[in-house]
């Protein structure tokens, strides 16, 4: 289960990146545009919503709780410095998927309590895509966190994130993790569509 998180490079805009992911067969995308204005976010988001309808994909937006209904997004992802999940739930109601970022088992447990619907857990390794990273987890970190999740009978999908490449996926999926979030690995590939095909084969 792969979530693609939008990203841009010299060759590709945010929207290009999402279009590539959907063309490649990814069914779950997150629009993340950290430094964009609300206007830009709305304009790109409207187009992403249209593309996701066309491809039958799930559409999550990063951070912008106030734009979820406007964009008819399926959900919102909240990072460590974004609005608390419990508050977003109060505003958005029960029909919206809310994802939360976690670095430890304690983060996962508290997001679960706060009614999160999935967790992005990481970083797997050091990455240049995101600033202000928490300590890296590696395979051992995931194994230990997922063991605790299981023992606590917390039934929430946990997606690994942070510096993951196609080759890492089989190992990570062995740890009890439910899916993988990717961004940089796809766009940095020489041929992003081929890279997506490789990734979807590994998942």
């Amino acid at each position, binding site marked *: *289960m792969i979530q693609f998180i939008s990203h841009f490079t010299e060759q590709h805009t945010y929207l290009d990146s999402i279009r590539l992911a959907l063309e490649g067969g990814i069914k779950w995308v997150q629009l993340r545009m950290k430094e964009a204005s609300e206007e830009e976010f709305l304009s790109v988001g409207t187009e992403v919503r249209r593309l996701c309808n066309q491809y039958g994909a799930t559409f999550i937006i990063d951070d912008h709780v106030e734009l979820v209904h406007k964009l008819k997004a399926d959900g919102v992802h909240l990072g460590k410095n974004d609005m608390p999940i419990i508050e977003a739930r109060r505003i958005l109601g*029960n*029909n*919206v*998927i809310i994802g939360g970022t976690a670095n430890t088992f304690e983060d996962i447990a508290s997001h679960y*309590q706060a009614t*999160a619907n999935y967790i992005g857990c990481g970083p797997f390794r050091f990455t240049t895509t995101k600033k202000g990273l928490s300590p890296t987890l590696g395979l051992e970190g995931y194994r230990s966190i997922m063991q605790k999740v299981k023992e606590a009978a917390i*039934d*929430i999908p946990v997606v690994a994130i942070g510096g993951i490449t196609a080759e890492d996926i089989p190992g990570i999926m062995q740890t009890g993790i*439910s899916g993988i979030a990717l961004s940089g690995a796809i766009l940095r590939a020489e041929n992003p569509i081929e890279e997506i095909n490789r990734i979807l084969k590994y998942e």
Partner: protein
Amino acid sequence: MNINVNNKTITTDAANLSALAQELSLPEKGVAVAIENKMVPRTLWEQTPLEEGTSVVIIKAACGG
């Protein structure tokens, strides 16, 4: 038969994903489902069969914690 939903074993008679969605009262909106780690769009639920031991991941709003 027994299937695996979000790493928990459940017993169901649902023959396909669409029937399972009904059984679990999944909402019309705000839900994403993966079978054996592959996301399945809602339009394909009806034609996606479930078998003993199938692993299902459901990301849904409305019943988080």
